[in-house]
């Protein structure tokens, strides 16, 4: 008998099957365009960074931030819509599906989306010759951690609000600053010392540093276990918040 979590995942996959063409552009092509324009174009002016070719240096950052942005972008309107307009979660509520199945099924769907993008991206950057270490194969796992750490709290947020205008604030004040200042395009050490802790708070920075360590084959700035631990803790807290937000939204 299929687990209810799997049934929830299947529902999201069914819907995705109808939309996948539209999303291919943003998940594969956009990061590649990014690499070409920033990595090769801008990189041509910059030269090396921390002893590496700029393209090589930026690839792991773009990979982690793609996972981060996909996870956030997917967990906004879709989640709110499934509560507010489609009422898909209300429909599930009347079945043996439990709240934790709803959250877990959704996270598995996000992981499915992110992992496909991460693996394809890894292959393409391999072809570009931008991977320096066999450790690069673990980057999809890091992307998975970043994805859950980002998607879980955003899903919880989306389940708690009633108006989609809040998402503009989320994009403007959380997602874009995180992407710009989490060590994706330049080392966090370039930031004024007072601002660096903000980058350390972002799960993206930990994901970027782990990915970079993996593709270049160097040690991350903090012990790897601390980066992984931070991401796990962030994800766990987000999941708890999501379960409680779903429960609150669906009570009565």
């Amino acid at each position, binding site marked *: 008998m299929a687990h209810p979590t799997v049934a929830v995942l299947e*529902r999201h996959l069914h819907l995705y099957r109808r939309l996948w063409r539209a999303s291919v552009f943003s998940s594969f092509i956009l990061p590649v365009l990014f690499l070409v324009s920033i990595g090769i174009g801008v990189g041509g002016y910059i030269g090396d960074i921390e002893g590496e070719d700029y393209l090589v240096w930026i690839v792991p950052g773009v990979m982690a931030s793609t996972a981060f942005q996909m996870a956030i972008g997917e967990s906004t309107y879709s989640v709110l819509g499934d509560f507010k307009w489609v009422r898909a979660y*209300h429909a599930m509520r009347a079945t*043996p599906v*439990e709240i934790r199945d709803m959250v877990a099924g959704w996270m598995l769907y996000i992981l499915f989306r992110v992992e496909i993008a991460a693996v394809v991206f890894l292959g393409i950057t391999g072809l570009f010759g931008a991977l320096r270490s066999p450790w690069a194969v673990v980057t999809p796992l890091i992307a998975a951690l970043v994805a859950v750490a980002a998607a879980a709290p955003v899903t919880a947020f989306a389940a708690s609000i009633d108006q989609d205008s809040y998402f503009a604030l989320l994009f403007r004040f959380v997602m874009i600053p995180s992407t710009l200042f989490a060590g994706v395009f330049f080392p966090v050490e370039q930031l004024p010392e007072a601002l660096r802790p903000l980058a350390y708070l972002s799960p993206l920075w930990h994901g970027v540093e782990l990915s970079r360590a993996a593709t270049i084959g160097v040690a991350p700035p903090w012990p790897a276990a601390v980066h992984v631990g931070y991401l796990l803790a962030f994800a766990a807290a987000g999941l708890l918040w999501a379960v409680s937000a779903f429960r609150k939204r669906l*009570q009565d």
Partner: protein
Amino acid sequence: MSEQPLIYARGLVKRFGDFTAVDGIDLEVAPGEAFGFLGPNGAGKSSTMRMISCVSLPTGGELRILGLDPARDGSRIRARLGVCPQLDNLDPDLSVRENLTTYARYFGLSKAQARSRADELLDFAQLQEKASSAVEPLSGGMKRRLTIARALVNDPDLVLLDEPTTGLDPQARHLLWERLFRLKQRGTTLVLTTHYMDEAEQLCDRLVVMDGGRIVAEGSPRSLIETYSTPEVVELRFADGVDYAGKLEGIGRIDPLPDRILLYADDGDAAVAEVHRRGLTPSSVLVRRSSLEDVFLQLTGRTLVD
């Protein structure tokens, strides 16, 4: 075991903040029964149905569904219920068939079982031709039929229908009644809410009238009519604005409504004869059998559908 009620409630209460939507009701529904909640907007029908469906927990009182406690065994209970909520919550971007198979999977049916169950239910709901159509463009009646069909995917012991036919045209409504009647004949226990008197009379063996969160009357449709009304009702309309209520005194119980006067009588024709004998000339006269509408009017002083 078979005599255990499927629904058992004592002093059931639901509050939203300070507001009490369900104010201490007692219920028992036996296997095989068709049970109805009748009541005006805001009476607390849906709030009660949601507690029975185990999607909302009671604020107070005792509730047992299928002999189990919703607070502890919600998921186990829901596995054996079929729920048609007041508002359709179909997946608009999935096809009609996918709506059924997806929902079947929530109940743990295998993919093959889900497909064959979907075929049966498409038949039942007369939606075979629409099987691969998206849900969005379906008519209201088709969506409602699909929602009811979906509620049956798990072959439930207890089917809960919140206003199954509200907003449908008479044809669509009659088709649905016929389908629900079939379910009832198969021995499925039905619990439904409705604003429609004829629906309650057609489908329910027993019903309660709710008003303001309380049960104000309970019984079979016939017994309620016998208790709270007379066998016949005369509807009189007068062309002028004169107050005729006084002139009708003594013929039977009188209920003056804004547009007509209801006269409750054991024998409608005799009452009409008396009206004419008094020299009154109503512009229209209708003698009809008493209905639950009259019961409701008698109990609450209000008409049901406004």
